[in-house]
């Protein structure tokens, strides 16, 4: 169990749902209705997974909030809109290509990978550069375990991840808006092999919703949200650092490392505090922690580095 925040900060899931239910009842009685943008799917595949001891022991954010608040710029800049549009992404079957500095490169069907890996539930903090945060129970497996299966060569120093490219479906890819598509991200090999680094296929015991990165996404809990690339189709092991989307777009604003760090502000806004979603009006922001609270596990990776320079 890692550091805690007082539970009172988040409206607990049940109270949240109760409140919604009361409101819905009132609305139903008056003949109106609010339809949640996306109701949770019934696909409760992974309700009884082993709980990882790498989990952060704090209360999770209500799943409705997580499902309706996610950036997916391929579809739209508007989070709600993106959630709606993401539903059109075909994800079955899904294959993952692994190439580069490895002994056994190949293209693998996701279902086959899942059969080989032990899935776990891991509750992690999630901190976006937009200064909001959540606590999410992911379902997934260690990236390191997958990489070991393809035998990385000693020349592999970096990893590049590439998202799906489907301009017919993803409007902003079609119009080449803002970022260079497809979305790419990268890690140093030691970051990739770190036990906290996760490839997620689900959350809240269910299949990952499309807007949250289905069917396969990266979760590196001590880094800002944009590192956690969605809908991964390709993993390359490289000798040199890869180019990554946001870093290419604005080098001075989004670093390659993008470690959560309250002392390194974004050029245009503070990263010193964050709004924990699920907290009510009149709840103060939460102080952002160095490495998002995972310093004990990951600080050693950066021990001789100037974090202000390598932000």
């Amino acid at each position, binding site marked *: 169990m890692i550091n805690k925040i007082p539970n009172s900060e988040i409206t607990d899931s049940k109270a949240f749902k109760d*409140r919604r239910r009361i409101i819905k009842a009132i609305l139903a009685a008056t003949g109106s209705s609010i339809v949640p943008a996306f109701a949770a799917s019934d696909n409760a595949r992974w309700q009884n997974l082993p709980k990882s001891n790498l989990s952060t022991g704090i209360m999770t954010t209500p799943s409705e909030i997580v499902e309706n608040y996610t950036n997916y710029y391929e579809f739209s800049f508007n989070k709600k809109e993106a959630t709606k549009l993401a539903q059109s992404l075909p994800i079955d079957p899904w294959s993952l290509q692994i190439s580069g500095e490895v002994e056994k490169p190949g293209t693998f069907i996701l279902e086959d990978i899942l059969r080989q890996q032990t899935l776990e539930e891991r509750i992690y903090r999630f901190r976006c550069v937009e200064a909001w945060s959540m606590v999410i129970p992911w379902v997934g497996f260690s990236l390191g375990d997958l990489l070991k299966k393809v035998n990385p060569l000693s020349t592999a120093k970096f990893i590049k991840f590439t998202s799906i490219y489907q301009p017919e479906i993803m409007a902003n890819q079609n119009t080449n808006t803002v970022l260079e598509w497809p979305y790419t991200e990268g890690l140093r090999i030691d970051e990739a092999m770190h036990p906290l680094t996760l490839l997620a296929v689900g959350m809240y015991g269910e299949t990952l919703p499309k807007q949250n990165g289905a069917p396969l996404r990266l979760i590196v809990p001590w880094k800002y949200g944009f590192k956690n690339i969605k809908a991964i189709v390709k993993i390359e092991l490289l000798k040199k650092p890869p180019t990554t989307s946001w870093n290419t777009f604005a080098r001075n604003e989004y670093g390659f490392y993008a470690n959560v760090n309250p002392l390194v502000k974004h050029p245009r806004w503070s990263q010193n505090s964050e709004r924990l979603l699920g907290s009510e009006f009149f709840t103060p922001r939460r102080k952002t922690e160095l490495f998002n609270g995972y310093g004990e596990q990951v600080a050693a990776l950066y021990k001789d580095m100037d974090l202000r320079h390598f932000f």
Partner: protein
Amino acid sequence: MIQKSNLRLKILIVCWLPLLFLLVDAVFDNLGSNPIRALHIRLGDWALRFLCITLAITPIQAVTNWRGMSEYRRMFGLFTFVYASLHMLGYLIVDQVLHWKIIGVDILESSYIWFGIISYFIIFVLAITTPNWSKKVMGKNWKKLHRFIYLAAIAAVTHYFWQLKGNLAEPFLYSIIVFILLGFRVLISFKTRHMSKLMIPKGRKTSKLSD
């Protein structure tokens, strides 16, 4: 006369509606996953919209020759002040709960907020110098002071631009609006300064000699 005060009342009610809808959405938990940010966005957007409406009155008047609108300009200006104040108070109280240390760091490190503060400062000064007596006391300076409203608009649009990551369409729209309104104003002042001798005033000016 009756018709006019009726219109005034209608506009007054309409101007409060965005706040009413916001309160309804807050009570019914209809502000989405990040209600506090939604609050900032709603109030900030309406402050900027009222600011644009206020700025639009003079050009509309010039184009339509309808002189009756200038009294509404003051009203829209005051609603700009109302929504901007709520926006600022929402930040301080609803979001930061008056935790001054965190607020201090947040403001120092967030340059987009500086532009908001500049804009709010101007709106505040213009609002407290709104009453007629203040207009009388200040004489010619009043007009000069109230031209700062354009600076408030530019600062507000910059405040908007400066907080985004790459999706600049909406603030771009507002900056075009402000640019057109400002351009119009410059054109008019140019026209009145240099061509007033050539222009023969016409239009329905008769209805309001007190202007």
